[in-house]
């Protein structure tokens, strides 16, 4: 099912035709990488270990057991404020939809993760910077409800610049909505694992993403409340080395583990098995 969708997705024209397009460059060390291998390596540079951003469908495939993912996300955004800046929000939405093939910045569904029944939600940074508006908030709340109803664990992969400005106060309210919905998992003793990827900031960090039972962060990911630019402007100083990176957050006690993407599924599965009351003693993966 997931593979079919992958095929149906629009590919940039010309890919696989020109020889240079078989290759890509590491954003961090500049190493020439063979694209196929790079993708098989989950977009991690084999030379320097830099974690590049990852397309949402590939993210799903990297976590869900093969053939188990069934998409449930389906909501489309509206423009309740009639927001216009240098461009109307409605136009921006159309452009993002065309670019990503998604209605909004989240892909989610039910699946098995290491045999544990789960609801998996993945935020799409390519869609409006992964920002949370009404659709993302509602999809998360529905995902939580589904997990609670069906006894599934919840896994959310966060990648977001924060709340969606063009939905203003309504997007702010999604922080409260998503946070409150998590109570359903508490009541049912179902585990919630959050994976913070580059970048996770603003109203997403400051709501559901920070409240998981176990929080993973990917190496080097930018994670925080305020963006570094805002902080630099406020304090009028250069920021310390490594500030707001995953390792910084681990040091300051905000995340449980910084885990290489290539080992991430294994660790997520272990966490889910440890926590999920419906899974018997099952060490290792």
């Amino acid at each position, binding site marked *: 099912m997931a593979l079919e969708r992958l095929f149906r997705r629009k590919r940039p024209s010309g890919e696989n035709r020109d020889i240079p397009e078989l290759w890509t460059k590491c954003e961090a060390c500049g190493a020439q990488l063979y694209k196929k291998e790079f993708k098989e390596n989950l977009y991690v540079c084999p030379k320097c270990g830099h974690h590049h951003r990852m397309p949402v469908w590939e993210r799903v495939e990297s976590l869900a057991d093969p053939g188990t993912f069934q998409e449930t996300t389906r909501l489309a955004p509206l423009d309740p404020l009639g927001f216009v*800046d240098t461009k109307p929000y409605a136009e921006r939405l159309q452009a993002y939809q065309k670019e990503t093939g998604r209605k909004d910045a989240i892909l989610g569904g039910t699946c098995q993760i290491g045999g544990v029944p789960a609801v998996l939600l993945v935020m799409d940074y390519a869609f409006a910077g992964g920002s949370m508006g009404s659709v993302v908030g*509602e999809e998360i709340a529905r995902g939580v409800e589904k997990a609670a109803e069906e006894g599934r664990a919840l896994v959310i992969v966060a990648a977001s610049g924060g709340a969606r400005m063009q939905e203003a106060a309504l997007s702010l309210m999604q922080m*409260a909505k998503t946070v409150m919905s998590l109570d359903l998992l508490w009541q049912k003793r179902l585990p919630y694992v959050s994976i913070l990827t580059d970048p996770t900031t603003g*109203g997403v960090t400051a709501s559901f993403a920070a409240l998981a039972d176990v929080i993973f962060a990917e190496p080097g990911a930018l994670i925080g*409340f305020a963006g570094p630019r805002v902080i630099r402007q406020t304090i009028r100083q250069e920021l310390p080395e490594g500030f707001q990176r995953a390792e910084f957050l681990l040091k300051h006690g905000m995340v449980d583990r910084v885990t290489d993407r290539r080992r991430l599924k294994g660790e997520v599965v272990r966490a889910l098995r440890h926590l999920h009351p419906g899974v018997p003693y099952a060490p290792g993966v």
Partner: protein
Amino acid sequence: MPLEFEKPILELEKRIQELKETARTTGVDLEAEIRLLEERLARLKREIYGNLTPWQRVQLARAPGRPTTLDVLEKAFQDFLELHGDRAFADDPAIVGGLAYLEGQKVVVVGHQKGRDTKENLQRNFGMPHPEGYRKAMRLMDLADRFGYPFLSFIDTPGAYPGVSAEERGQAWVIAQSIQRMGRLRVPAVAVILGEGGSGGALAIGVANRVLILENAWYSVISPESCAAILWRDAKEAPKAAEALKLTAQDLLRFKVVDAIIPEPEGGAHKDPERAIQNIKEALLKTLEELKGLSPEALYQDRYRRFRALGVYQD
């Protein structure tokens, strides 16, 4: 310090004052002229204050002399006993809170606190809390639940402090926790947006059964200046951003982000703070009365449903 858009009013007021002075010192009868000008002044005020743009309201929401949390606590409540500290790191002067009586009713109160002058503003960090401020708020929520007293919050912040120390101590984490803690209250919770409701730093103490807002206060996901800096790449476009963000009380009521609007005296709460505080008190009493019959579980469910229903999308 008059706001730019109020200048015509001030000029007219000055002219009336001058005429009165002339009449008094010279004995000339200027009664008719003065009455004419006073009528004109009333019209001008209605025209300006009756057609405030969102940006003008933002300026009123920030006007010096506007009632702060402590002003409200001192004047609308009895025997406010301030409690300090988060029991973990520090006391944050940008958030105040404690125990009080409202018309004899025991309540627990929390609010952002801006300074009333420059010196106090520096001490209070312009009402921008650090994590310890939210931890103090959560401590007080615990207290409200433990004794079953209503929890009242007053929102007036440009936002949570965006600084290195705040990030190191988990600003995002405490905001999330505070949202969660307040959502879980088993007592009546009422929030009042006094002035500025800046983003997650405001919402952290805004997860109430009823959210009330002063007529000229604003509440949004970002300040108009920051929004303009990002979307227009120029903070000077803040008036346009204020328009686009639909951050006024009327707009928020339409989207059900707030439940009721508390009227302000003409020209803004700072023109007659006593009156504004009286209006706040009446609104709080009325709202607490509405929530009175609900059981602890019903209060939680009421709050849950209130926030669960917010958002606009296409299914």
